[in-house]
């Protein structure tokens, strides 16, 4: 306990330099702006910032990425409240009550609630990050090849199920992502797969160029589909959070913080699910559920606390299992690998200080959103009024140069463009992007551990199903898939009906 606090103190001290604070201020602002602009998501912000921080020392680069991540998730609430357009998918739940409050002339109060919810949510998640990471790290030491195979598959399947609105398409996107990760030389015989004789493909598809394409370029093209609606801002009151709003809703804050963190820990399930789950739980627990959707402070507080608590939650499996808890966390994982940080079960053995560094980064990011949340109202309104047709080409230029900057290869720019077009087409046909990203990130882990497991068991599949953790994960995957089947659901409904009938008889 005290060792952890001392380590955390060291981490805080290491970031208390002018250079670090400058980067905190800059990246929180960048995150806030990206999050607030409709059409640009946290994942996109992180991919873009990954390309720009490639030359920085690992700790500074990751500090920037975490501040961008936290800032973007918080920033989404600005456009949700002021424009009724979620800046990121995570703020869709905040639209319902946030904009309803804005229409009543209470946009300032709504922004204050969003600020307090986001700050408290991130802080709660941060506490769990510091507390759970060593515990989960200990548990992860028991994971072998079999468990890691199932965990990678679980991440893709659960992400496919819960992100987007069509699990079948989510699974297809996830499996396609897993396939993409396998392009290039495989690990045992260095055999080139699906490279078509292209030298550049032998090393595989670059993770970051693919992510910049699927999330950067594709998002820009989708954003250009619709003509931007004129921005009309209602007059609003003070954005300083009211103590009474926090004190009256402390139960909602704690509940949503817990839900958000837990949803974050579940591999592949992101901030949007955290916000909706927290919102739904708050509605169920509320004495005034009829106010939800009509300007409920409880609802807005729940959504904003939940999605921001999910951010540190999503980083927990990144650190302990090298499995991302959300799509932006997948980019964070990729960035850690690029910078030579090796997350995984051994992190508490090899680099325990790094875990507390990440906790400290979260604290600085929280301070960043708090300061900007209280001060930058007029600036954010000006940002929201900048025409999309000016923002889109600027970001596209950043996507191109950022991708090129990774390793000075034009081929990476082509990969980015290719994935941008694929991502655009897939989005247009209703395929969610998060499972695709998870698949690309987890493909290598899945393949290596499947083949390693099979070599260890000499081709016997039984250890994949008989080891306790493996069995649980396998059963969960089967359950998740089975529950989406109409036949299974009909069977369950019939069984339920029969039970009710027997009870009434």
């Amino acid at each position, binding site marked *: 306990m005290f060792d952890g606090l001392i380590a955390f103190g060291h981490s805080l001290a290491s970031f208390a330099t002018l250079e670090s604070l400058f980067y905190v201020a800059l990246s929180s602002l960048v995150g806030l702006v990206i999050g607030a602009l409709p059409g640009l998501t946290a994942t996109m912000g992180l991919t873009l910032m990954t390309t720009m921080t490639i030359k920085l020392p690992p700790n500074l680069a990751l500090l920037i990425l975490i501040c961008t991540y936290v800032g973007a998730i918080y920033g989404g609430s600005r456009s949700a409240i002021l424009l009724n357009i979620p800046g990121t998918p995570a703020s869709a739940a905040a639209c319902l009550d946030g904009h309803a409050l804005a229409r009543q002339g209470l946009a300032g109060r709504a922004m204050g609630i969003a600020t307090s919810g986001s700050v408290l949510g991130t802080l709660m998640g941060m506490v769990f990050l510091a507390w759970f990471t060593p515990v989960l790290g200990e548990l992860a030491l028991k994971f072998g090849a079999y468990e890691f195979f199932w965990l990678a598959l679980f991440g893709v399947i659960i992400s496919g199920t819960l992100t987007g609105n069509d699990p079948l398409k989510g699974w*297809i996107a996830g499996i396609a992502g897993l396939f993409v990760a396998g392009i290039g030389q495989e690990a*045992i015989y260095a055999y080139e797969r699906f490279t078509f004789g292209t030298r550049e493909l032998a090393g595989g598809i670059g993770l970051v160029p693919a992510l910049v394409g699927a999330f950067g370029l594709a998002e820009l093209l989708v954003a250009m589909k619709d003509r931007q609606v004129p921005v009309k801002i209602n007059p609003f009151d003070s954005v300083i959070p009211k103590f009474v709003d926090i004190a009256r809703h402390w139960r909602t804050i704690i509940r949503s913080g817990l839900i958000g963190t837990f949803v974050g820990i579940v591999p592949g399930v992101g901030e949007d699910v955290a916000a909706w789950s927290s919102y739904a739980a708050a509605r169920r627990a509320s004495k005034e559920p009829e106010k939800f959707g009509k300007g409920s402070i409880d609802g807005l507080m729940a959504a904003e606390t939940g999605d921001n608590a999910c951010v540190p939650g999503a980083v927990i499996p990144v650190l302990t299992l090298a499995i991302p808890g959300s799509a932006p966390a997948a980019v964070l994982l990729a960035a850690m690998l690029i910078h030579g940080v090796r997350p995984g079960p051994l992190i508490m053995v090899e680099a325990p200080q790094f875990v507390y560094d990440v906790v400290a980064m979260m604290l600085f990011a929280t301070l960043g959103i708090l300061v900007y949340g209280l001060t930058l109202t007029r600036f954010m309104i000006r940002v929201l009024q900048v025409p999309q047709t000016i923002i889109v080409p600027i970001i596209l230029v950043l996507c191109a140069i950022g991708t*090129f900057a990774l390793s000075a290869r034009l081929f990476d720019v082509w990969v980015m463009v290719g994935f941008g077009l694929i991502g655009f087409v897939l989005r247009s046909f209703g395929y969610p992007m998060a499972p695709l990203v998870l698949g690309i990130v987890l493909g290598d882990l899945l393949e290596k551990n499947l083949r390693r497991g099979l070599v260890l068991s000499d081709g016997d599949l039984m250890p994949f199903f008989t080891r306790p953790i493996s069995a649980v994960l396998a059963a969960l995957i089967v359950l998740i898939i089975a529950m989406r089947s109409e036949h299974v659901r009909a069977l369950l409904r019939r069984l339920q009906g029969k039970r009710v009938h027997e009870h009434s008889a």
Partner: protein
Amino acid sequence: MSADVARVTPRADLIGGIGWVVFGSAIVAGALAMDRFESFGATLHTMPGLVPGILGGVIVLLGVLLSIRALRAGALAGFSAPWLPDAKGRASLIRASIATALALVYTLGLVGHVWFPAASALFILAFIMVFDISPEAPRSLGRRAAIAAIVAIATSAVVSLVFERVFLVRLP
């Protein structure tokens, strides 16, 4: 983002499902054609084609399921419906196509072939000129050109300088 929950017709899903079946089959065929390294003592579970083959098979299966679902939802009846979208959909398609074309010309045609700051400035200028600057009140051509030129030159200069001098990246 809202596009993640785009509304898609059963007809489009059927075409998508068939596309996935073809794609998955190609993967399986590619996996089967891979070297099996039997002379190196490779067994089934160490062969390079194992995982791509399995994934290809799963994609085929999911593609079939998607196609069946689309057929049940009346995909075949939908084939007689117009293939072109309505006026609003057409406008969206045109905007996205123009944006895609400009992005392709910039990333594949200009970047790496033309001096980067000039290529970027040209792209930004063209992009802003093609699309309306203000959704509320489209400005005159001259004013639009002036704003576009300022944004294009300022952005390309700042981005180039930051990447070249601060991030120490050789520009494409």
